[in-house]
């Protein structure tokens, strides 16, 4: 009897030590899979916004992701003004309006293609579509393309830094955080 209760105690003591050890090592394992600091730090891209042409899609790169930049023409802007959801997605720099967004479909991350004649994007993976401000017009994508954190600096745009215009977009739900 005495023997077995001593064994019971040893079992419990071992269980407790092993339990703590298991939790601690799981935590270490989880952290080992986190993105490295060097990966996280390499996160800023500066764009010179005076270089873009109207209705010509340019793909830049930020954090390894493609970034769409589409300078809006007069007609595109007129069209966007009819729908507040379109207009609030555009970034105004000087007198120009730009669509700047992460070029990965919000469905499962393919890169949609731009058709300048129809002024719309088509994602070939599952047939999703977006208009010229990258607002979704056909499912399966659940929402428009996400807008990366940006800060306006004269006629430059710094990606990766959150300026007041971007923060407002986040608050009003125009885009999700990426």
């Amino acid at each position, binding site marked *: 009897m005495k023997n077995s209760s001593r064994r019971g105690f040893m079992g419990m003591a071992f269980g407790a030590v092993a339990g703590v050890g298991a939790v601690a090592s799981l935590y270490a394992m*989880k952290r080992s*899979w*986190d*993105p*490295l600091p060097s*990966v996280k730090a390499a996160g800023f891209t500066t764009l010179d916004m005076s270089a873009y042409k109207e209705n010509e899609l340019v*793909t830049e*790169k930020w*954090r*390894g*992701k*493609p970034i769409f930049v589409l300078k809006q023409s007069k007609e595109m802007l007129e069209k966007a003004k009819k729908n507040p959801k379109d207009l609030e997605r555009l970034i105004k720099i000087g007198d120009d309006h730009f669509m700047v967004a992460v070029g*990965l479909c919000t*469905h*499962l*991350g*393919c*890169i949609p293609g731009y058709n300048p004649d129809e002024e719309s994007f088509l994602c*070939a*993976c*599952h*047939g999703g579509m977006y208009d010229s401000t990258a607002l979704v017009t056909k*499912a*399966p*994508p*659940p929402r428009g393309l996400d807008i990366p954190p940006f800060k306006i600096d004269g006629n430059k745009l710094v990606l990766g830094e959150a300026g007041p215009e971007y923060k407002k977009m986040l608050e009003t739900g125009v885009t*999700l*955080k*990426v």
Partner: protein
Amino acid sequence: MAHFEKATSVHDWLNQRLAIDTVRRVMATEYWIPKNINFLWAMGMVLAVTFGLLLVSGIFLLMYYQPNVATAFDSVNYTIMREVEFGWLWRHVHGVAASVVFLIIYIHMFTGIYYGSYKKGREMIWISGMLLFVAFSAEAFSGYMLPWGQMSYWAGMVITNLFAGGSLHADGLVEWIRGDYVPAQAFLTRFFMLHVLLIPLAILGLIGLHFAALRIPHVNNQDGEEIDFDAEAKKYLAGDKAGSKVIRFANDFMAKDMMVVAFYLFFFFYLVFFHYDFAMDPVNFDPADGLKTPAHIYPEWYFLWSYEILRPFPTDPGLIAFAFAQVIFFLLPFLDRSPNAVPANRRGLFKIWFWVMLVDMIVLTAMGKLPPEGIFSTIGLYAAITFIALWVVLPFITKLERKL
């Protein structure tokens, strides 16, 4: 201490230390197999052999492959394919085996479903089998990343994005899995580790479990007959080999199994030498480019049916349907409410269920390969709904079944 005597032979020496006679009796000569089974019961052995082919060819690929985003593509497409003597052989064996193994797994699964080999004590065989299916799927996916071509990259992107859970937006989880914002070096090295070590270890363990699960219930037979293995074994050992319903696993049954394996290997090496291209996606011969999506992204043929269940729906319902498709086969032994473990052709409505399910999965596979437009989208949608509906009705139609 145990008592050892001077050995009379090498066999005796080993037998005293490892009890090899007992092991052989338990595992082979007195492991009983019913006589009334057909070539479909050789598929398990065919799978074991194919796994062996994957292992051997993989070991040779591993000696030249470089898990680095800058060099991976060339280490496969240049070093292994052009420089290494017979490197092409290992690569084609590995690629063809990875594709064919799924064909055999599907045949093996549908054999089990047809003959009701997943119930009446065989539930653990089924569950361990499904775990093997999941492990093989993970193994195939992680291996597909390694050549770091366009399909590797974009399949990696799309599949890891599934873990964001649609509008749950678990982007942190996705970045954790990748170790980066997009698939990059951390992603490649960890999938390399999974592919060459962790998942193969799990597969070996699961094959052990699968075999152990077979030991007590024994394999089923093509007549749904309940065999008293002890009584039949006694009859056999007493000399009535013709009257007994069972034979020894080895060497008697193995001889038949290996016959099927031999035919299979002819077919297999025919593919390796003359038709390996079906297992190599042309798009994957372009190096990975994070700024250019291929025109059509589709998975390898064996994932198409579940991909097609994801595709016709908006994000959230699509993900739910996809998750459903991934796990529902696990529940087969519990959703089938009928007491009969007999071939489907004697089970009334279940017979129809079986054939509709088989055809539906073939239709889903075909639609998954075609671009998601017009009539194909529509057919895909109905096939996906049919798949879900079949599982919903299964408990009811099997409940109605009369006991045979």
